[in-house]
């Protein structure tokens, strides 16, 4: 598969808002059906990066040449502050899990990583990770209630595209 070039002018820097992390989970639609609820992460967060946490093993042969093996990556993204905000569906869900101490429900999230600097309007490149974990790390703060979270990507992922940048996007898996 050909490498997709950035949809940026030469030397133009990608804006931070073009890297999007979206959390998704299933909720009951009433009756027996469920539907996927989505929320963009990063509201009121000034700085957040995906840390890949590569497990690296390096050896050196008798000629002095280094060989570096990457055993695995454990991608993680922290959102701090993650403020309790009116209208936040994920915040409400995590707070509900916290109240019930229902820790087993924290590893059932789907996370979409959308790189809006790759692709074009109507087909932005994205990754879909299933069975991801979101943890809440603390709760409190000073003037506002902060509820910082960490997102742990499962690496159980597929690549594809999303047709738009909004809660109702459609993810199309690459063939």
């Amino acid at each position, binding site marked *: 598969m050909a490498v997709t070039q950035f949809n940026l002018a030469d030397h133009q820097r990608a*804006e931070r808002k073009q890297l*999007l992390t979206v959390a998704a989970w299933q909720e009951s639609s009433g009756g027996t059906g469920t539907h996927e609820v989505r929320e963009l992460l990063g509201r009121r967060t000034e700085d*957040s990066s995906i840390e890949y946490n590569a497990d690296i093993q390096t050896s050196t042969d008798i000629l002095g040449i280094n060989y570096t093996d990457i055993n695995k990556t454990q991608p993680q993204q922290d959102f701090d502050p993650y403020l309790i905000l009116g209208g936040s569906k994920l915040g409400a869900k995590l707070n509900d899990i916290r109240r019930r101490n229902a820790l087993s429900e924290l590893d059932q999230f789907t996370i979409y990583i959308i790189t809006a600097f790759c692709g074009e309007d109507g087909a932005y490149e994205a990754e879909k990770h299933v069975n991801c974990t979101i943890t809440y790390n603390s709760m409190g703060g000073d003037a506002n209630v902060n509820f910082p979270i960490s997102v742990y990507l499962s690496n159980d992922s597929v690549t594809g595209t999303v047709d738009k*940048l*909004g*809660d109702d996007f459609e993810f199309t898996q690459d063939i």
Partner: protein
Amino acid sequence: MDKNQAIIDYLITCPKIQDNPLYFNFIHGNEDDKQIITTGNEKTIDRPYVDGSVLKRFTFTIIDFKSVAYRAVVKDGIHVDENVEDILQVQDIIDWIDEQNEARNFPNFGEDCIVESISTTANNPNLNGVDSNVSPALAKYSISIQVNYIDVSKVLWK
């Protein structure tokens, strides 16, 4: 949405302002006139967030003109507190702003701006000076007000 007009529309709902002339930037002040003075807002205080929204601040000042009484507050055992009463009227505007903030009743900056808070920068009015060239002399009390809002116009996620 013009934020200056939004501020005017907002302030004229204040009981202490709506019954008196309100001027924008320029005025020949008379007793109880109010004046809005715009203030340049430093971009350095803008706080961009990873989703593309930006926390911004809109600052302005209200000047309230009050006639001056050159009398001692206490003289020969008689309390003359006209100046004190005047400043209490100005204080009412500060209290009104606090009440609106508590009630989350904010100026309407349009759909691309989510107003977070409105507050005065001080708990009591500032006396900026006295204009003695008019009769009666007018004291200029000022209240600086800041509106914090999130500008979501550049957010990609709709």
